[in-house]
C-alpha cells in the first residue's frame, strides 16, 4: 500500500524566513504533485514533477523530486502572508507509460505566515 507522509503538518513562519516542507512516500513512483488549498476552496496545482531530479520554481516556491530517496521537498523562500494556505503533496500510482492511476495524498501542511 502506497503511503505518503508529509511533515510538518503545521508550520508557523515569520515573513521573510525560509523553510522546507518534506514529502516522503513508500513505493516507487516517478510522478509527484504539489497542490495548494485555501480555506473552503478546491485544490490549485502548483507543481508537476515527472522525473528523478526534477526541480521547478514559481515565485517564492521551489519543488524538487528525488525518486531514489522517495522524497520531494517544497522550499519556501522569504515567506509572505499570501503564502498562507494548506499545501498537499500527492503521489501518482500510474506507472510511466501506463494509462490508469490515481493520486495518494499526504495529510497536508497548514502554513501560516505571520508579519
Amino acid at each position, binding site marked *: 500500500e502506497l503511503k505518503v507522509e508529509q511533515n510538518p503538518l503545521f508550520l508557523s513562519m515569520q515573513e521573510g524566513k525560509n523553510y522546507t516542507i518534506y514529502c516522503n512516500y513508500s513505493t516507487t513512483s516517478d*510522478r509527484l*504533485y504539489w*497542490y495548494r488549498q485555501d480555506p*473552503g*476552496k*478546491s*485544490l490549485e*496545482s502548483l507543481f*508537476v514533477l*515527472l522525473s528523478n531530479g526534477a526541480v521547478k520554481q514559481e515565485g517564492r516556491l521551489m519543488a524538487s523530486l528525488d525518486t531514489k530517496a522517495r522524497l520531494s521537498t517544497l522550499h519556501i523562500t522569504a515567506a509572505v502572508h499570501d503564502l498562507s494556505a494548506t499545501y*498537499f503533496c*500527492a503521489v*501518482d500510482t*500510474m506507472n*510511466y507509460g501506463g*494509462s*490508469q*492511476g*490515481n*493520486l*495518494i*495524498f*499526504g*495529510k*497536508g501542511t497548514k502554513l501560516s505566515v505571520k508579519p
Partner: protein
Amino acid sequence: SQTIHQWPATLVQPVGSPLSLECTVEGTSNPNLYWYRQAAGRGLQLLFYSVGIGQISSEVPQNLSASRPQDRQFILSSKKLLLSDSGFYLCAWSRQAPYGYTFGSGTRLTVV
C-alpha cells in the same frame, strides 16, 4: 482548453435522504475521472475512479456509489445519507498521460 464543472457548490441534506453530485469535463475526450472526499481538517481520500463509460472502480467500501453514463460525466450518488458522509467532495480529471490532475471547485456536503 479543458474545464471541469462540479455542482452544487453547497448542499445541506437530512440523514436518510438521497444524494446526487455531478461533474462534467469539457474540451477533452476519454478522460480519467475521480471522486475524492476531504473530511473536516483531514486529507483527501479517493472514493471512485473511472477510465471509461460504465467503468467504475471503488477504493473504499461505503455508503456511496458512482456512475459514468457519458464520456465526460461522472456522478456520485447515495440512496440514504449518513452523518459520516459530510465532507468536501472533489471531482478531478486526468489525461491518460503524465499531465497532472485537475480538480473541480468542490461540493461542501453537510448531512444533518
